[in-house]
């Protein structure tokens, strides 16, 4: 299935892709850290501030109504994008990290106690480790970690054996931000549900590569960030099943999340507002919805197909370099390649690539336990988006080859 538009037209939608850095055309391959924004998003937000800015859910005046309606329409766009059953199950947060912290705090308050267990995996981003560790410290509960193979595949047998009568929640990443592995989240959820245990799926690296269907996955929570899906930063999503969200206490108090406030007692508003205290990032939400519409317009399957083709090119090209080691060779992975060559240090390579105009990420990628698993201090990560070109992948391969020669 081809993209609905030519690659030239698509690239023209992203003004930043045309800039030069250090006098060289920008080759942006750090999409796993953040994605660039199409004009459709930039213009939506610009137009919003020019013509429809007012606080949501507050006023009786025309502007407030207009923006409130668009904010709720954005919620519907998100719902449809991840195929959530109900609109009120989509809660706007600041980002993935905020969403996970919200669940760890709120779910943890209600359902986790001393001696209970929480299962995560060994390939989590710090954002899906630390909030659970903090919960464990508060409650005296225990963190269990699913191991994975050298290829970057989770050990499901170990996972099954890890589940116990004390397990209260499983929190796993949909896609590893370092290895690119697409985890079998549907299977993981099914196994947990057999024991009545809810599952949170970290979709920060999963939602932007093709289609995501939370109803099909069956997860209880799915979280992601707007800025990693071609939307603005400062906006994130927490999808949660109504039954659980209703049981969970609010984690922040303030305006809009309340039904009735007296100094004696406050009753809380309904979903989703119970979890959206204070003025939300409504411009961000509306901007993110524009990004999701943009991806839908391109064809999400086509986006995934193009990224897979670029991934194959990058993997094959990089593999021709002497001493190349690729971290993450799972059969099912997204367009992320993490690697090291010979004895070179990732920081040196990143600095040299930068001067060639090539933006990659170097270091531990906020996944220190994963680096420890491989016995390395970090690596180089090229994360590819549909707007990247075959020429850019070639530039990466040539750049890495040159850096390897300089440093070897």
């Amino acid at each position: 299935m081809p993209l609905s538009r030519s690659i030239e037209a698509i690239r023209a939608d992203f003004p930043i892709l045309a800039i030069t850095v250090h006098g060289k055309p920008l080759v942006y391959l750090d999409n796993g850290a953040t994605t660039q924004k199409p004009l459709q998003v930039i213009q939506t937000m610009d137009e919003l501030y020019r013509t429809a800015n007012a606080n949501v859910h507050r006023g009786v005046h025309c502007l407030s109504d207009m923006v409130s309606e668009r904010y709720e329409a954005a919620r519907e766009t998100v719902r449809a994008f991840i195929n959530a059953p109900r609109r009120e199950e989509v809660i706007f947060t600041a980002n993935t990290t905020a969403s996970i912290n919200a669940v760890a705090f709120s779910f943890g308050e209600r359902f986790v106690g001393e001696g209970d267990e929480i299962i995560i995996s060994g390939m989590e981003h710090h954002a899906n480790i630390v909030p659970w560790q903090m919960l464990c410290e508060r409650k005296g509960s225990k963190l269990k970690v699913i191991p994975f193979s050298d290829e970057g595949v989770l050990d499901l047998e170990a996972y099954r054996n890890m589940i116990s009568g004390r397990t209260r929640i499983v929190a796993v990443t949909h896609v590893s931000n370092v290895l690119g592995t697409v985890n079998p989240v549907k299977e993981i959820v099914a196994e947990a549900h057999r024991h009545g245990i809810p599952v949170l799926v970290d979709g920060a690296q999963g939602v932007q590569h093709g289609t995501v269907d939370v109803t099909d996955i069956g997860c209880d929570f799915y979280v992601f960030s707007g800025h990693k899906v071609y939307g603005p930063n400062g906006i994130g999503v927490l999808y949660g099943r109504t039954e659980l969200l209703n049981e969970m206490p609010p984690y922040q108090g303030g305006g809009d999340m309340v039904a009735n406030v007296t100094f004696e007692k406050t009753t809380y508003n309904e979903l989703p507002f119970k979890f959206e205290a204070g003025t939300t990032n409504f411009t961000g939400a509306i901007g993110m919805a524009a990004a999701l519409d943009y991806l839908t317009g391109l064809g999400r399957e086509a986006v995934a197909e193009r990224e897979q083709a670029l991934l194959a090119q990058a993997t094959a090209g990089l593999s021709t370099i002497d001493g190349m080691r690729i971290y993450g060779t799972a059969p099912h992975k997204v367009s992320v390649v993490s690697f090291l060559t010979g004895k070179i240090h990732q920081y040196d390579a990143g600095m040299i690539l930068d001067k060639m105009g090539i933006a990659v990420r170097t270091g531990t990628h906020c996944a220190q336990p994963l680096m420890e698993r491989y016995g390395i201090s970090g690596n180089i990560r090229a994360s590819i988006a549909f707007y990247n070109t075959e020429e850019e992948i070639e530039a990466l391969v040539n750049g890495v080859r040159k850096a390897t020669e300089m440093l070897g």
Partner: protein
Amino acid sequence: MTIDELQDQIIEEFAQFGDWMERYEYLIEMGRELPPFEETHRRPDFLIEGCQSRVWLYPSFNDGVITFEADSDALITRGIVALLVRVLSGRTPDEILGTDLWFIDRIGLKENLSPTRSNGLLAMIKQMRLYALAYKSKAEQS
């Protein structure tokens, strides 16, 4: 040669390079030429942990001057470490404390000293100054 004369000399050395790759090649070469770091000094006390690269710094104080031995796990960082050692090692605490290190900026390596870069270099310079301060007060007390 004073610290400032040495800074000027380094700026001149870098002025001959046409592009970034040449500058980096020179830094890599200097990194390689840095005397090997004594393995017994490779201890947590002398490690400056950065997120991107790590730096080791070992000071000693003899006859009123401080000698720095240093290392990094990344070659370009080691090259910059070598420059800092060349400028600040073998100096008195007062010389080190009275120095404004402007050469890094002038040779285009300023971003390497940004607090957000976290490669250990900014912390290394701070640590060199702290050692100078400590040796100075120790010398004044004795």
